[in-house]
């Protein structure tokens, strides 16, 4: 800096010191920085500060001490919270439940919007197509609170639930849709398909609308039927969209839907329904079933860190894999 100011008189302005040049460039874009300020502040407060708070995974966090300005005591050994978590039977319950639901998600839910959009794409009457589209988009706009309520009204126990009321009226027994363990996963995935499958078609339909019509015309001249057109034109055209959506899905592999599952879990299906997100809330915020000798905050933050790291590894792995297979990947 001193060099730059000292030499100003002698050197033509074009060859200014790099720092000064950098300063000029920054000044040149000052309005863009001003536009960035609120969002930067957001990232510092709500993204970066929580990262700093993550140090509590090495502590026995005590809100009372923190209020007094005294740092919470460290745990020994430093991995104590992790040890408690990995040795608890909750760890395996959470792994099993979360990964099973996540697999259900990929296997049963993921292909559904694709299939639906391919079928919708075959409709040639555009008014008809648009009407059906508006209908299948609708459930996306409902909150999970509304959907959970609707499910209660339809599948809940008699006399409130429609299906069970009808079963009882016809002399049959009730089916414990909302309490039976065997029903948790099917209902989870059916709710998800119902809510999001229609909405999920948007991105595919947009990609499909971009396919060059001439390709189809040429295929018809060559004698290709509609199935062959699907295999040789349509699917290759949207292949990269499918891959990107799959990567995104893998990135949120462990996002099995906090609201949805929280609203579905009850004391009877807890063993099968609890996933990382609901567990962290249940133990950390509500303070239920906290293991002995740990602080609820530190312990559940440890669970959360584990979950975030697994997520990160999954998304980066998928992205890498996509690149290996010659797709562009996401970043």
């Amino acid at each position: 800096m001193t060099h730059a100011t000292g030499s100003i008189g002698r050197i033509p302005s074009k060859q200014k010191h790099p720092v000064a040049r950098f300063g000029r460039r920054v000044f040149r874009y000052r309005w863009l920085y001003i536009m960035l300020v609120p969002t930067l502040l957001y990232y510092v407060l709500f993204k970066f500060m929580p990262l700093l708070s993550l140090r509590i995974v090495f502590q026995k966090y005590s809100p009372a001490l923190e209020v007094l300005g005294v740092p919470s005591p460290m745990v020994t050994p430093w991995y104590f919270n992790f040890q408690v978590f990995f040795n608890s039977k909750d760890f395996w319950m959470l792994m099993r439940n979360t990964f099973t639901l996540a697999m259900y998600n990929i296997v049963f839910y993921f292909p559904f919007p694709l299939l639906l959009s391919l079928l919708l794409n075959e409709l040639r009457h555009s008014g008809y197509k648009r009407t059906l589209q508006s209908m299948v988009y609708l459930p996306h706009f409902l909150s999970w609170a509304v959907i959970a309520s609707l499910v209660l009204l339809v599948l809940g126990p008699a006399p409130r639930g429609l299906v069970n009321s009808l079963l009882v009226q016809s002399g049959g027994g009730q089916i414990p849709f909302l309490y039976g363990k065997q029903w948790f996963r099917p209902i989870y995935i059916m709710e998800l398909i119902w809510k999001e499958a229609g909405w999920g078609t948007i991105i595919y339909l947009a990609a499909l609308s971009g396919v060059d019509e001439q390709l189809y015309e040429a295929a018809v001249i060559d004698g290709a039927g509609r199935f062959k057109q699907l295999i040789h034109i349509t699917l290759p055209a949207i292949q990269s969209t499918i891959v990107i959506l799959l990567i995104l899905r893998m990135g949120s592999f462990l996002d099995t839907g906090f609201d949805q599952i929280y609203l579905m879990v009850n004391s009877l299906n807890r063993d099968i329904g609890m996933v990382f997100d609901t567990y962290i809330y249940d133990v950390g915020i509500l303070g239920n079933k906290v293991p002995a000798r740990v602080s609820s905050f530190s312990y559940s933050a440890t669970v959360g860190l584990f979950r975030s790291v697994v997520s990160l590894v999954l998304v980066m792995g998928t992205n890498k894999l996509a690149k290996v297979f010659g797709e562009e990947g996401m970043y």
Partner: protein
Amino acid sequence: MASMTSRNQSRMGRVFDLFNYSGLALLATIMVAPLIYCFVGSFSVTGMSSGKFVAFSIDAYKMIFQSGKTVRSIGNSFLITIVGTLINIIMTSTAAYALSKPLMPGHKLLTYVVVFFMLFSAGLIPDFIVIANKLHLKNTYWSVWLPVAVSSYNLIVMRNFFKQLPESIEESARIDGCNELQSFIRIVVPMSKASIATFSLFYAVGHWNNYIRPMIYLDDSRLWPITVWLRQIVVLSLGGLGNDNMSENEIVWAATDAVKYSTIIVSTVPILCVYPFLQKHFAKGVLVGSVKG
């Protein structure tokens, strides 16, 4: 021979069309059926649980709009949604615009930061410590607005959208003496209406439907949005315990079946009303920029 196959294919095609047209219609009907069932049930005196429509009545709606808590919670939902979406759009669009200029020093670093936080979050508990214990936002609406003020994913998608806008128009504005902020407001925003409308819709739906965040950060039942209040009504009527101190009367009231049906309808209609207005912008705005990151 050639004509044979093509006729065969077209017959196959017609059979496929028949199944496709009717099958999709059936599927679409299933998609809307529960809501229609609920809508019909809200006008039946005792709801529809027995599978029969009992007698037409709008009592349930009268009860809802006389109930201070329901009306207040709908008002709260509107407040949360409108202010929250405004904050979202202003912050996301300005930041996305700035990040769309690759010559700005720090552009790369800032983009990396955004992508990193798209892929990694500290988790619920560190968030809670910052929001509740450090910033003391609990039991204020700032706790449902600010922590979700910017979605990293939307920010990246919007940045990509701004990137592909023609540079020349902004250049001419700059020659006329506009700074970046001015040319953003006067030129870029009007050009990007479809995109902004789409993101507003995404954010607004998220705010209106949010359940767990208000559950975590708003203990005071007077601040609750309709989603939390609806859940309270439904759970209470099933004999569960609400975590709010409700009076005897309110519990009896909440247990009325038709009230549940109509509360579901009332909590759904406002967000469905937004949809047609934004739909025309939709097809254009939604995908631009979203495919590549």
